[in-house]
């Protein structure tokens, strides 16, 4: 309905009858752009708060899902059913000594946790959380997301190198090798989607998935691109670095991989980034293949709210799948993973792209 969340906020304020008067104040002062900045700033604060709450919830959810699968309770003491456990974890981590190893590269060592956290949040910017609920609708949203996620291996490499620890270095090397081999099938699977929409904008991709076939089957791209969906899902789990592909950490081999030497808040940053990444990647999977925020309309409730709910339900379903997978399967070996990436997934993704291209050109779909 609206281009982005900014316009939505303006609309709401206008409807409440306060926008005009506020705007006039700034207009008299001749600084209308300050109002724009304030509104955008509010958006970012809301997004940041949402991300943090989500991350905290996800850490709790992960522990609960693991506990469910493993026939135990998980956290139960702090708060109702242990819901406040993430807060306590945060408090504990803040209270820990911040250790920088003697022989570490101090600057890079300190910088790496921040570098890894920022791209994890930047990915949220073009992600449509619901109808009109997007910070900025870039024309190149998908490209931007793939580009920004490519920053995190750099941060991992920095962390691994700066720690001056052999396990960290090996974890970092693995992470980079893994990321290079999985960004390609990831991007190739996403390009097949772009062939349908003709646009890289995330909002356009979601809009293209509105409606149904025969009134029953929703027009999600998963039905047009089943192979692409599987490729994208595998590649995103590899990108997230979760079991069965968690080679950057693989705690039974490399102790904790690239963040072996980190403690306290810096460790927490890696931890938070991991879950931010989990949410972001699941959101992208939902946006590209599972219809984004599309869903049946509910009378009397604004579409912005229902769409947000639909988006969250679908995203949490994907997250649950990732967590479920983690509890069920063992870890692969790094060389097996790279083999799978280069020898299976890249050719299959190219084939998928070719077939999709032919079908689109022929006008079949």
């Amino acid at each position, binding site marked *: 309905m609206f281009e982005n969340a900014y316009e939505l906020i303006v609309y709401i304020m206008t409807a409440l009858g306060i926008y005009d008067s506020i705007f006039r104040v700034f207009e008299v002062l001749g600084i209308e752009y300050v109002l724009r900045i304030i509104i955008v700033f509010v958006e970012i604060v809301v997004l940041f708060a949402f991300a943090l709450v989500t991350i905290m919830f996800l850490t709790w959810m992960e522990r609960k899902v*693991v506990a469910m*699968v*493993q*026939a*135990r309770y998980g956290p139960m003491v702090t708060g109702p059913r242990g819901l406040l456990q993430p807060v306590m974890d945060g408090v504990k981590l803040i209270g820990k000594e911040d250790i920088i190893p003697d022989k570490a590269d101090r600057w890079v060592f300190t910088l790496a946790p921040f570098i890894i956290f920022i791209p994890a949040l930047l990915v949220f910017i073009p992600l449509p959380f619901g109808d009109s609920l997007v910070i900025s609708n870039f024309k190149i949203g998908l490209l931007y997301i793939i580009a920004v996620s490519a920053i995190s291996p750099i941060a991992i490499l920095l962390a691994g190198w700066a720690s001056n620890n*052999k*396990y960290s270095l*090996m974890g970092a090397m693995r992470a980079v090798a893994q990321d290079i081999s999985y960004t390609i099938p990831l991007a190739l699977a996403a390009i097949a989607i772009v062939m349908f929409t003709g646009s890289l904008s995330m909002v356009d991709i979601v809009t293209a998935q509105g409606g149904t076939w025969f009134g029953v089957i929703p027009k999600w791209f998963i039905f047009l691109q089943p192979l692409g969906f599987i490729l994208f899902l595998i590649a995103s789990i590899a990108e997230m670095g979760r*079991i*069965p592909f*968690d080679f950057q950490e*693989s*705690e*039974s*081999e*490399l*102790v904790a991989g690239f963040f072996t030497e980190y403690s306290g808040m810096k460790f927490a940053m890696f931890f938070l980034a991991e879950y931010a990444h989990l949410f972001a990647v699941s959101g992208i999977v939902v946006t590209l293949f599972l219809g984004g925020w599309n869903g049946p309309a509910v009378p009397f409730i604004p579409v912005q709210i229902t769409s947000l709910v639909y988006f969250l339900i679908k995203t949490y379903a994907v997250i649950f799948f990732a967590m479920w997978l983690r*509890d*069920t*399967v*063992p*870890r*692969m*070996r*790094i*060389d*097996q993973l790279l083999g799978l990436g280069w020898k299976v997934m890249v050719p299959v993704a190219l084939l998928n792209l070719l077939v999709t291209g032919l079908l689109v050109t022929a006008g079949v779909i």
Partner: protein
Amino acid sequence: METDELILNMGPVHPSTHGVLRFRLRMDGEIIKNCEIVMGYLHRGTEKLGEMKTYLQFIPYTDRLDYISAMPNNYAYVKAVEELAGIEVPQRAEYIRVMIMELNRIVNHIVSIGSLLMDLGAATMIMWGFRERETALQLFEQLCGARMTFNYIKPGGVREDLPEGFIPKLREWMKDMEKRLVDYEQLINDNEIFHMRMKDIGTISAQEAINYGLTGPSLRGSGVDYDMRKIEPYSIYPDIDFKACTRPEGDSYARYIVRIDEIKESLQILRQVIDSMPEGKIVSNAKYGIAPMTGSPSSVMTYFPRIFTPHAGEVYSRIEAPKGELGFYIVSDGTTKPYRVKIRSPSFCNLTAIPKMVQGLRIPDLIAAFGTIDVVLGDVDR
């Protein structure tokens, strides 16, 4: 391109070394060129302690060797002492011993499989396994008051008779275990990634396995049809119908499958033992040795001298412990304390083959092969 070799110290504190073991790896990137094992971080001088304690006093120390399956340790030592001193054991005591050792074998294999899967990154199995293990440990607790370090089997019999309701509870547990075993196999056996990680990893041929002195499931996984319970039948094993589980492949997967099969086989043995458990005494009450008994016996049932002196002589006695051949070499000089106690621990001897197994493989393979060898560091370092 010329690259340097990387020396990686895995351990003594590392999540996958099951304790305080240290691998000194010479690596070419991720490939292991040479693996050297450094141990002794848990060395407690058990053999020296054996020379300073009386025969009965030493039994609790055997519990601390392989603390995952302490009952066979008890038994192996007691069996050696009994052979040395010529002590006869009542039939009921033998049945209780075998029952409790087979229960302990199942517990040991559950832990072994669980920790193997945890090392491979699937933490669910160990939690599931510990659920069943917990119930079994409660059974042990009922029996002798301890969950892991039992001090239950003693020369001439066992310490206490079965408590009331023990057998029905054990039957219930066995029924439960059979169901859970199906769950385990569904979770693990058909998993493609598990196969990728385990097959053709850490392969050792039958010839080499014997040459390296491997025993237990590790040797049976290489296709050697051996089982101390069959080759040198002791206790009541001659009367029991069971088979030695073997697999021909000799890789990590084979060793894993052997353990799963042995759980089934042990359940089979348990069933037979429970069904034919005789009534009678649990401790032999003949007098042995010349030393007078100290202290007063708690009841007639548990009468056995606390201090006794076997004839001068030496004995090597071995049993099939869950991890392999567990043997005690005891030299007696005719006093109340052994002159020399030597422990042939399966973990120590099986570990010898690890450097050979992992040559040219990667770190994750080392973890997988090491997990299937199933060592307990208390048993390695003694």
